[in-house]
């Protein structure tokens, strides 16, 4: 009888161990599943951020048509966010290097420091190395559609977003007209005049270049 009692106790003990091990195994299995789910969310978020940092908008493209007698002749075309051509214009300027000036306004930025999540970029003016910026050709009229900058058309905005874009554009136009910080100027805004550097990177005649705007405020000239 004593032997049988020991046997029963041994069986119960084994069953207990099996239950404990199984509990740990099932718990571990569920935990790994949860961790994998969280990890997938984390990877998707990081990939989204990476894509966002590399993303670009191209509000305008241009081509130098000729350089004769110290005069640059260029054609500029404007595009909306879907890549549709909005308008174009052709002009000549005295000088050797073409400058495409962009105005950048922070959005969803930190009001105290002016730090921005991203920037809205507006083509501002064209000048050259010998024509001062103040005497340059303004570009706003080429894409102003009743107060809305058409370079931001092509995707659907909410009424609130559209109003905000219109307001920033109005501020940009006011700044351009006054040449001074307008009342209520958005903190953290700045200009970026990208240009060819004749000694290093000459813009070739007949080649189309695009002005690329990055989400963090950088502007680049790249061959299209």
């Amino acid at each position, binding site marked *: 009888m004593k032997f049988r009692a020991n046997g029963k106790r041994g069986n119960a003990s084994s069953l207990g161990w099996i239950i404990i091990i199984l509990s740990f195994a099932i718990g571990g299995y569920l935990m*790994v599943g949860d*961790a994998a789910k969280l990890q997938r969310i984390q990877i998707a978020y990081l990939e989204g951020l990476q894509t966002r940092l590399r993303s670009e908008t191209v509000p305008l493209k241009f081509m130098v048509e000729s350089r004769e007698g110290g005069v640059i002749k260029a054609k500029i075309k404007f595009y909306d966010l879907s890549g549709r051509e909005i308008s174009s214009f052709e002009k000549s300027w005295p*000088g050797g290097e073409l400058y495409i000036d962009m105005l*950048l306004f922070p959005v969803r930025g930190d009001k105290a420091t002016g730090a921005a999540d991203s920037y809205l970029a507006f083509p501002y003016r064209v*000048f050259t190395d010998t024509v001062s910026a103040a005497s340059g050709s303004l570009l706003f009229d080429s894409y102003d559609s009743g107060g809305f900058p058409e370079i931001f058309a092509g995707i659907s905005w909410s009424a609130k977003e559209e109003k905000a874009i219109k307001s920033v554009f109005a501020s940009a136009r006011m700044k351009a007209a006054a040449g001074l910080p307008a009342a209520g100027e958005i903190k953290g805004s700045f200009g*970026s005049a990208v240009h060819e550097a004749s000694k*290093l990177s000459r813009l070739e005649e007949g080649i189309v270049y695009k002005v690329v705007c990055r989400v*963090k405020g*950088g*502007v680049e000239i790249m061959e299209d």
Partner: protein
Amino acid sequence: MNDKLGAVKAILYAISDAAAFLFTTSLGIAILVAALVALASARLWSAVSDRRLAFKAAGEDFRLASAFGAALRELASLFGRAAAALPTIGGVALALVLVLGIADSSRKVDAYVAGQKRVAELSTTLRNLERRYKALELRVDDVKDGRISATLSFFDYKDLKAAPTTQTIDIAGKELFIDAIVCNFDYSSIASGSAINLAIPYRVFSDEVPEAEGIELSLFDTSGLPLMYRRSSDNVYGISSEAYEARLAELMSDIRTDESARKAGIVRSLYGDAVHRVAKKGESFTVWVEQSGGLTIKDLVAF
């Protein structure tokens, strides 16, 4: 050890996949049912045939009812044997569930480890893309009578304790333009950390003074290297300080000609960028080289 573990995993996954296919997919279940039906049919056919031979040997007619009875008996016997084998079938089913669980857990752990590597890679890429380097600082000293006085500071990263090199400028206008040559490298080089976008400020002009009449900046050392890209030997990893400077000089030479930079296949864009702001007395700001591309201006925040 890894090879052995790999071999065990391969066997485990094969058993697990086969079990999962047979018991969880429609096709697998159909195959399993078909196999069982075929097996049972063979047993019934064999039993009926044996019975028919026995009837024949006894000189009796083997009627349909006899065949049906023989088949039913065999079927009952089959169910009886199956019922007797239920503990064994249950044990096998339990073992298969365990194999499936272990295989699934092992796969999840493998995927998790691979996922952690991906997270580390993405984090490094993002860190490199989000990085920005200070090109210069500017303080507007005075704005008076249509002229701007400002002090520009350039930092020598080779000697961080040294006071920044400064240059004072005075120019007509309301808006200050800081012109720089910008060299943006290919994203893959930036993301891996093997290259950083460069910017070399070289001139200041204004809204009223064109670039050609602007003021040259003097931020190069005696050997023609931009101060902000000089590094002390402590801050140069995996390469000697001399080799770093030689490589930097080579790079500067490369970006002096667009063609050679493009031939090297490393440069995404090379151009000039004059960032500008309306000058306000007492205001200070920093020009940054963004690793996602281009230059930006940020207010200098007092700390």
